[in-house]
C-alpha cells in the first residue's frame, strides 16, 4: 500500500501517527485516572463516570459563555479557570453522591454498579432538562485551535499537545497525593485494612468521601479537556465509558502504574492497527487482544498483592 508514496511523505506520516498514538494514550489515561482511583482504592464500580466528565464539559461551556458575555478581554485564558471549576463542580457532586448513595453500599460492591448506573441515567435526563437535548458547542480561544507547524508536512494538533501536558501534570499530581502525602497514606491504609485503619484513628468515612470526590473531580477535568476533541451533550459521557473500563480493568484494578501501562498498550495497538486497516476492524482486533490477555491474566497487567 505504500508503493505510490515518497520516503519523505511516509516519514512524516509515521511521525504524525506516532503523535496520534501518544495523544490517544493521554486521552485514555486522563479519562481512566478518576475511575482507577475510585475503583482501585474503594472497589466501587462507578458507572456514572462518563456523566461526571460531562458535568465538567458543561461547566466549561458555561464558563466560556460567561467570559464571552462579560469578560471578552480575558477570553483567551478562560479554559484554565474552567478546568478548576469543572474539578470543583464534579468533585462536589461526587461528595454529595457518596454521602447520599455510595456509603450505604460499601458492603455490597455489585449493588454500586446498579446504583451508579441508575445515577447515570438520572444525570443524563437532568442535563437534558437543564441544557436541552441538543449538543452544545464550546467555543475555544483562538490559540488552542489549529496545529503546530513543525515542517512542511508534519503538523501536530495543539489540542493534542495540551491534553498530553495536562495528563502528565495530573498524573504526577495524583501520584504525589497517593504516595507522598499524609492523606494518601491514609487512603492506602484504609484500602489495605479498613478496621485497623479505623482503630489507629483514621476517619475512614471521611477518607472514603474525599477519595470519591477526588476521582469525580478528575473526571470533571477530563471532561473539560475533552470539549476540545469531542462533543458535549447529555449522553456524550457514554462515548467514553467503555474505553475507560477497558483501560482500568486491563491495567489491574488497584494499580496506578497498571492504568498507565494499559492505556499505553491499548492506545498504541489501536492507533497502529487503525492506520493499516479500517477503524472498526482495528477496534475489534484490539478488543480481541485484550480479551485474550485477560483470559491468561485475569487480575490485569499489574495487580497489587493484597491480603484477602
Amino acid at each position, binding site marked *: 500500500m505504500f508503493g505510490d508514496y515518497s520516503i519523505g511523505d511516509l516519514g512524516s506520516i509515521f511521525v504524525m*501517527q506516532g503523535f496520534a498514538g501518544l495523544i490517544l494514550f493521554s486521552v485514555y489515561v486522563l479519562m481512566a485516572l478518576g475511575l482507577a482511583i475510585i475503583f482501585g482504592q474503594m472497589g466501587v464500580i462507578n458507572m456514572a463516570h462518563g456523566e461526571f466528565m460531562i458535568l465538567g464539559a458543561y461547566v466549561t461551556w458555561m464558563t466560556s459563555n460567561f467570559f464571552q458575555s462579560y469578560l471578552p478581554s480575558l477570553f483567551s485564558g478562560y479554559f484554565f479557570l474552567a478546568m478548576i471549576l469543572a474539578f470543583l463542580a464534579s468533585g462536589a457532586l461526587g461528595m454529595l453522591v457518596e454521602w447520599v448513595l455510595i456509603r450505604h453500599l460499601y458492603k455490597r460492591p455489585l449493588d454500586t454498579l446498579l446504583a451508579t448506573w441508575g445515577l447515570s441515567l438520572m444525570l443524563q435526563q437532568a442535563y437534558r432538562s437543564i441544557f436541552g*437535548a441538543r449538543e452544545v*458547542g*464550546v467555543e475555544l480561544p483562538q490559540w488552542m485551535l489549529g496545529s503546530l507547524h513543525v515542517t512542511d508536512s508534519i503538523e501536530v*494538533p495543539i489540542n493534542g499537545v495540551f491534553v498530553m501536558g495536562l495528563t502528565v501534570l495530573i498524573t504526577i499530581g495524583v501520584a504525589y497525593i497517593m504516595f507522598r502525602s499524609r492523606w494518601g497514606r491514609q487512603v492506602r491504609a484504609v484500602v489495605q485494612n479498613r478496621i485497623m485503619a479505623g482503630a489507629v484513628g483514621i476517619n475512614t468515612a471521611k477518607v472514603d468521601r474525599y477519595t470519591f470526590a477526588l476521582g469525580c473531580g478528575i473526571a470533571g477535568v477530563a471532561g473539560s479537556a475533552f470539549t476540545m476533541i*469531542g462533543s458535549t451533550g447529555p449522553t456524550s459521557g457514554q462515548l*467514553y465509558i467503555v474505553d475507560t473500563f477497558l483501560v482500568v480493568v486491563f491495567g489491574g484494578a488497584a494499580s496506578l502504574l497498571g492504568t498507565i501501562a494499559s492505556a499505553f498498550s491499548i492506545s498504541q495497538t489501536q*492507533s497502529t492497527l487503525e*492506520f493499516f486497516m479500517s477503524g472498526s476492524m482495528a477496534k475489534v482486533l484490539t478488543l480481541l487482544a485484550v480479551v485474550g490477555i485477560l483470559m491468561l491474566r485475569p487480575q490485569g497487567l499489574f495487580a497489587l498483592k493484597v491480603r484477602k
Partner: protein
Amino acid sequence: MSDEANKGLLSPLRRKLLMGMAAVPAVTMLPRASFAQAPATSAVNTTGLAVTDTEVTVGILHSATGTMAISETGSIEAEKLAIEQINAAGGVLGRKIKFIQEDGASDWPTFAEKAKKLLVNDKVAAIMGCWTSASRKAVLPVMEQYNGMLYYPTFYEGLEQSKNVIYTGQEATQQILAGLNWIAKEKGAKSFFFIGSDYIWPRTSNKIARKHVENVLKGKVVGEEYYALGSTQFNSVINKIKLTKPDVIFTDVVGGSNVAFYKQLKAAGIDLSKQPLLTISVTEDEIDGIGGENIAGAYACMKYFQSLDNPNNKAFVPAFKKAWGEKTVIGDVTQAAYLGPWLWKLTVEKAGSFDVDKIAAASPGVEFKGAPEGYVRIHENHHLWSKTRVGRAKLDGQFELIYETADLVEPDPFPKGYQ
C-alpha cells in the same frame, strides 16, 4: 402524560402562533376548509379511526429521551408547529387536529410498542414519526399489520417502499448523486476518500457513491473507512487522508462522532477552505454542537437549508423561531418533518376521506406549494420529488446556498446499477 403535555404546550404556542399568523403568507395561500362545509363523519371515516365531527387525532412518535433526542427534538417541534398552523387555517375537512405524543425513548422495540398503542388503542388517523432507519424498520411491520399511515422525515438509505409510509426525506440517490456530480465538475475532483459511521445508512450511501464515482464520474475512491458509532478518536484516519491527498473527502459520520471528527480535522491543520469536503450528515442542527469555526468551508448536500431564499421559507423560519425560541436552528430533517402533517392534510382533502387505504391511493401526485424547501410532490413510490442542494458552511453555523438542481430530482429507492 401525553395529554397533559399537549395542553401545556398548546396554549402558549397557539397564542404565539396566532400573533405571528399574519406574517405567514404560505398558510393563507392554501385552500381553506371552512367549518360549515365539514362532511359527515360517517362518510369520511369508514374504518373506525379517531375522527369526530370536530376533531381528528394523529400521533407523534419520536425520541424525546435517550441518545436520539439530540436529533429528534427538531422533528417534534416542526410537526407540532405544522399541526398548529393547519388548525389555525381551519383544520382538515373542517376538523381540528389533536395530537397524542409518544416517546420512543431511542429504543427500537419501544417504538414498535408505542406505534401499536397509537394505532390500536388511540386509533390515530396518521403517525408523524421515527427518525433512525432502525426505528422505522421496527415500526414498519406494525404499520402494515394494523394498516396505519406513517410520515417519516429522515433522509435514509432507500431500498424500501411501503403503502403505509410516506417518506418525506430524501432517499440515498436523491441526496448523493447530484452533489457528487457538482463537486466533480466544479472542483475537477477525481479522487475521493470516504469516511462514515459503521451502520447501514453510511454503508449503503457509500456503496452508491462509490458506484457513481467509479462508473459515471470515472474517478477513484482512494479510501473507505468506517468507525464505530460513538468513536471519538479520528487522528489515524486523518493521517491517512493526509497521506492519500484526496481531491474530496466525502463523509457520513453521525452523532457525537461528528463533533470529534471535525474538531480533530481542524486541529490536524486541514483547512476546509482549501481541502474540499462534502458531507451528507451535517445540518444546521449538528453544527450547533460542532461549532461553526470547526466546519466553516465544508460543503453539505441536502435538500433544505435554513438560509434558503424563497417566500415560503421566509415565513417558515420566523414562525418556527417564534414558537421554539430565537436561538433554534432548522436542519434538513426538521423541514422534512414539517412537511408530514401538511402532506397528510392535503392528501386527506384530495381523497375526501381519512381512511388509510384511500389516503395511500390518493398520495401520488399530491403537491405542497407551501413547502419551505420550495415545492414538493409525492411520487408513485411514496417518496418525494424534491431538489438537491449544496451549501457551504459559514462561521455562524448557517449554510450559504452554492448550487441547486434545476429540476426536481426523481426519487429512486431501488436504484438500478447501484446495488
